[in-house]
């Protein structure tokens, strides 16, 4: 999968490139709006990650011209401003998704993957790790053949972990993702949910999937 990352801030572009490469994307980086437009017109890309504030030509203008030229590749907008109006404008111009800075690289790659699956018509509603499956449409979770009954929060927590299997999430990261709210770190809310989730998906199963990395956080996958 060929992704063009258009981002003028070189350090951001660099970790995005590294992160997406690790996830198996082929990444090219471009720092200017006008160059990006030329590249996208000339070469085939599967995806574009587009910053809004760019030298040469701003991101929204790049997007407008792309759509005018009937170049329909999925575009994810990155913005450091995060104003709702900007989000709406991007959407109106034909963006496919929007992510506000600061963002997490696994969030970005999960969204890009979702865009690709949407593009290819592939079933994007099912996540699978080993014999654990999570269906976003039916909201069914199964461990092997057994149906697991989860509360909405537990479901949302598991979904976050399953979108990036093997990746360690810190408590604060999970709080941010699942609750969209900053709890006092003294609150053991995340730990309690993890324990509950672990009881529901791992109890009685031959292998444990929900792992703790002491002093760091939690991840989903085989121990190691």
């Amino acid at each position: 999968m060929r992704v063009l990352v258009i981002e003028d801030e070189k350090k951001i572009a660099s970790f995005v490139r590294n992160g997406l490469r690790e996830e198996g994307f082929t990444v090219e980086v471009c720092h200017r709006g006008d160059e990006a437009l030329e590249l996208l017109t000339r070469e085939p890309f599967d995806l574009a990650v587009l910053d809004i504030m760019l030298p040469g030509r701003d991101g929204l203008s790049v997007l407008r011209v792309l759509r005018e030229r009937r170049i329909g590749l999925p575009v994810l907008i990155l913005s450091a401003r995060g104003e709702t109006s900007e989000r709406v404008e991007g959407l109106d111009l034909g963006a496919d998704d929007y992510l506000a800075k600061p963002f997490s690289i696994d969030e970005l790659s999960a969204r890009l993957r979702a865009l690709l699956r949407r593009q290819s018509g592939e079933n994007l509603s099912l996540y699978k790790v080993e014999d654990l499956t999570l269906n976003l449409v039916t909201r069914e979770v199964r461990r092997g053949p057994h149906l697991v009954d989860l509360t909405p929060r537990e479901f949302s927590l598991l979904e976050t972990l399953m979108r990036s299997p093997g990746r360690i999430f810190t408590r604060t990261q999970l709080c941010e993702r699942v609750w969209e709210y900053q709890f006092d770190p003294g609150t053991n809310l995340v730990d309690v949910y993890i324990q509950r989730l672990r009881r529901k998906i791992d109890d009685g199963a031959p292998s444990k999937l929900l792992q703790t990395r002491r002093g760091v956080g939690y991840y989903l996958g085989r121990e190691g």
Partner: protein
Amino acid sequence: MKNWSLRRRLQILTASVVATALVIFGIGTAINLYYEQREALDERLSEEVAPVLEQMEDAADPRPWLADPTTLEILELLPRASIIGPGDPGEVLLRSPDAPDLSGLNLGAASGFRTILVNGEKVRLGLFQAKGLRVVVAGDLTELGEIVSDLMLAYLLALPLAVLAAAFGSWWITEKALGPIAAIAATAEAVTAQRLDHRLPAADTGDEIAHLGRILNRMFDRLERSFHTAQRFSADASHELRTPLTIMRGRLEEALRQPGRARADESLLADLLDENIRLSSITENLLLLARADAAPLELHLAETDLTALVEETLEDAEILASARSLTLERDLPPPLLWSVDQGRLRQVMLNLLDNAAKYSEPGGHIRVTLTSSETACVCTVSNSGPEIPAGKAGKIFERFFRGNDARGGADRGAGLGLSICRELVHAHGGTLELAANRRGHIEFRFDLPRRPLQTTACAGWPTASS
């Protein structure tokens, strides 16, 4: 008088001033008139008596002169004159037909005028000396009194009319004078954060009102400039703060992903990452408050089952509560559809529940209720904590305000939670308040007015948690 309008007060003040002035003027005029009239009377009496005095002076001996028939004729012309002999009381030697009876009165010897009571009637007497005798002429004061009382009556009748006229006049004048001020107030009210370009019409009358208008317009200019500066700051700050935060986060996540790190390093990186997220969240909240100051917050409204949304947050509340051995009570209606921004409202609920758990005494309870009416739904979150001290209760919604942590440790929150909640509820058209604050019952209450379902372009747009 405190609650009366300026116009009403001016009217009453004007009427009172006019009434007082008229009364003073009336009394002054009456006194003046009385003395003037009396002086005129005295003068007339002197003139009348002058020929008699002349004749008496001319006569060698006044006593036989008194018996002279011509004298009597002359005295006929002075119907109220008496001639009195020396001594006090002197003998009345001669008395005209209409003259008052002065016998037995001590009139003194000095010439001049005096007012005395004769048989219960006020009489003006003029006393003149001639050849050792006294000629006393009486003048009628009744007429004089009538003139003065007529005048007073006229004044008394005119007074209410004049006061009424003054009241109406001042009402009209103040309308004229205050009208432009009312117009200024209306325009000033219309100048809001959204319509900062509104200005008062420039009047070129050069009067105080025009001056006030110019001053206010200059003030609006400054206000508009600082609002725009604040808005620009919010946008610039967003970019300037988020960029380094993004880089830090990206690099930390990258480092944390590298395999084969020592546990200590991993732990350090995780701590730094958590702090980075916390810092991002504080930045986000500050920017949200800055935006809320400049314009109403934009919401992603969608028809939502509020009961389910609250239930969902109670799932968290149960955990927060059980950690502190608190019981959780709820009183929720059957599914209640309401047009709200789910993410924002969840944030409000979590914040209130988090606070309720944090400030409850162990073994206490948290109680959540949700009710609805035709016009609004009301949610309360109460807990059984110690009351918020009076000095702090008024400040809990202020930014960066931090209450004493009930657990004795340092509160790690940035003190923005409640001020954010208040802004978010406000954006929904409601208000968040501290509804009860006594020992054992601290209650936060917010309402969400019913509004027509608005679908924004962003409805259904994926959020960070989707």
